[in-house]
């Protein structure tokens, strides 16, 4: 009744091809942005920032990055954890080498460094496809973790191989280190997420995104109609690694504050982000958000319900969390194999016709 395009007349091509053509969607988007930027920073506390919002924002960036590679370009990758580690160690080296430079610059440069590494490990994708590519990127994952463990230069020769993020600022506001306010952490990550999502959305709507999707759907056909697989695949690896590098940099410097490569960026991180993308929906920007929210927030919510309200023993609750989250994943994938994004799409289709479906 309220959610419909009827009566919403478009008189220019620009209006017609905007991201949110339906008025209700558009307003919803503005309202969410307004709440995210103008309301949450004033009410957020340490727990909500560190346990809920910051991990969600950072994982959403990583999921967006992986979604570009897998969902839009069809290149299966299991190296996400390794690429996040590149971002984290790059930002660590930059933070300690140039303490006076703004963190914004550091994080972007860390993303660019990850881009270079990503392109390097993306080269095999020109020859190999599918599961074989997954194995090649898996090698990247193990190689990168090994490298950051092995070479002391990356962790500034500290005794334990841990990297710690010292206090750094953006425009005079502390964003890393223990004295960071919850709002600063949150806003810093939010700015990156919004920028990244905006870039991703517009790339995937344009010619680059169409090339990626052509390669994904049938690479030989794409080649015949004039898509260069070299540039298409490598640009997907580049953009994807850039986003993942940013998320890795934020993950270490803003969220954890101290990290150890094997524990924080191991193979389980690659799988976690892959699951986010699959559960959220391949080839969907909204899906990346939904998947990240599901995988990050569900365990925290369950823990608070089971331990906080029901008073269960912590070990039982932890085991039940695995069972419930696992069960939900299976249930979702049976009900809708194309992920939460497809559920959302169907809901919107139904809403347009509601309340008169015939």
């Amino acid at each position, binding site marked *: 009744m309220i959610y419909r395009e009827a009566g919403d007349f478009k008189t220019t091509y620009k209006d017609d091809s905007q991201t949110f053509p339906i008025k209700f969607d558009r307003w919803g988007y503005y309202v969410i942005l307004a709440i995210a930027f103008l309301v949450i920073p004033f009410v957020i506390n340490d727990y909500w920032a560190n*346990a809920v919002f910051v991990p969600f924002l950072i994982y959403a960036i990583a999921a967006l990055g992986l979604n570009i590679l897998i969902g839009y370009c069809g290149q299966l990758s299991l190296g996400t954890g390794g690429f996040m580690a590149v971002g984290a160690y790059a930002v660590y080296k930059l933070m300690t080498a140039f303490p006076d430079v703004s963190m914004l610059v550091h994080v972007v440069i860390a993303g660019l460094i990850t881009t270079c590494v990503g392109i390097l490990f993306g080269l095999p994708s020109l020859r190999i496809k599918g599961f074989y590519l997954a194995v090649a990127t898996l090698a990247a994952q193990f190689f990168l973790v090994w490298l950051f463990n092995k070479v002391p230069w990356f962790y500034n020769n500290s005794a334990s191989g841990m990297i710690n993020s010292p206090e750094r600022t953006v425009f005079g506001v502390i964003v890393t280190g223990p004295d960071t306010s919850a709002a600063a952490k949150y806003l810093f990550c939010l700015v990156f997420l919004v920028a990244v999502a905006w870039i991703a959305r517009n790339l995937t709507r344009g010619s680059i995104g169409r090339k990626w999707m052509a390669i994904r759907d049938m690479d030989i056909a794409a080649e015949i109609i004039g898509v260069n697989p070299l540039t298409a695949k490598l640009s997907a690896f580049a953009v994807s690694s850039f986003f993942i590098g940013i998320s890795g940099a934020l993950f270490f410097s803003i969220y954890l504050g101290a990290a*150890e490569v094997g524990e924080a960026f191991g193979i389980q991180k690659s799988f976690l982000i892959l699951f986010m993308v699959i559960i959220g929906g391949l080839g969907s920007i909204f899906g990346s958000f939904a998947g990240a929210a599901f995988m990050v927030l569900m365990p925290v919510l369950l823990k608070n319900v089971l331990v906080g309200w029901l008073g269960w023993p912590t070990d039982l609750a932890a085991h039940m969390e695995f069972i419930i989250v696992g069960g939900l994943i299976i249930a979702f994938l049976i009900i809708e194999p194309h992920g939460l994004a497809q559920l959302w799409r169907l809901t919107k289709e139904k809403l347009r016709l509601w309340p008169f479906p015939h």
Partner: protein
Amino acid sequence: MKLKLASMVLAGVMAAAPAMAELVFPSLSYRTGPYAVNGIPFADGYADYFTLINERDGGIGGVPIKMIECETGYNTEKGVECYEATKGQGSLLYQPLSTGITYQIIPKASSDGIPVHSMGYGRTSAANGKVFEWIFNYPANYWNGASVAINHILDINGGDIAGKSIALVYHNSAYGKEPIRTLEELSAKHGFNLKTIAVDHPGQEQKSQWLQIRREKPDYVVMWGWGVMNPVAIQEAVNIRYPMENLIGIWWSGSENDVIPAGVGADGYKALAFHGVGSDYPLYGDLQKYVVDAGKAAGAGDQLGTVIYNRGIYAAMLAVEAAKKAQEISGVAQITPAMMREGMEALEISEALMTELGLPGFGPTFNVTCENHGGEGYGAVTQWDANAKKWSLITDYGPSDMDVIGALVAEDSAAYAAENKISERCN
């Protein structure tokens, strides 16, 4: 409406009031995940000692203890969540039992003003109280452990180990890498050859590492393992017929869980310790009476007397003693984290005190001071008797080489202080 509001306020006050008269000790435990086998006994021991104090003494100085348990699964991200969830509830002290989580909460807790006690783990240079105001790691740290192990080897060899070869088999993580620098210094000092062999997490596959040991035949092997890595390593050592009495584990590689799977082959395996083993202490009578028989034991209640359970007891005992000290100094029963820190800094563990607590000779005697948050760094060696299925202490609590360690602590903490712009205290 007014009535509703008034009743809500009343409910709020009633909910808040009992929370005031409690001493909150969060327990960041891990009863699940790859390290649960060690996390469970520690969490049980930690909880049972607090239960005992509540049941027998009515709390510390008349104020009952409230222990909040939060499951981390040894995962740093969950550790963050647990820290944030518990810090607002008046937490007095954090003991996360994980090097990764310790590193992470060191800056946070220092900023929030809540003490952290990483007993025998965590950041070694936190022993320097001049830099690490809120962090404590008494009675011993990894570098003391490395030195105690080398001292033990020195003792066996009549004080001369020049030319001997010693291998370090370590968990390839922050935890496992800790002793390397100390061992390198000691190797230069005593003239032994050091060979480091890394085992990647979680350590279920160590064939190649032990093949290397079989080939190179080091005279001694020192091991820094945790979780499933330990039993696998000991089994592999048995398989290559490495002499067990030459294999020395750190205190985290010396529990029943680590040696029982290898059966009689593990007989003679040695591990370091900074507290007593077994249940042959008067305290256990009280534990049985007030906790176990009352049905209040934590977990399954089957861990009593195991090495890591005793470590949980020891950690809780030190926490309670520090809280008592804090009450004594401040004259307030309901202490704050800042008072708790002062109590920890004034902590003195004497033989008389341990005897009074029902734990005679349970740990080394030590004093904590403003400069020294690490105690005197005494450690002992235990040995496994596979037939009796029992650990026993085979040495007294001996000193570690503080000349070497002190310099390393000063160096590492100075680097931390410079990185985080901390000025030294206690001057």
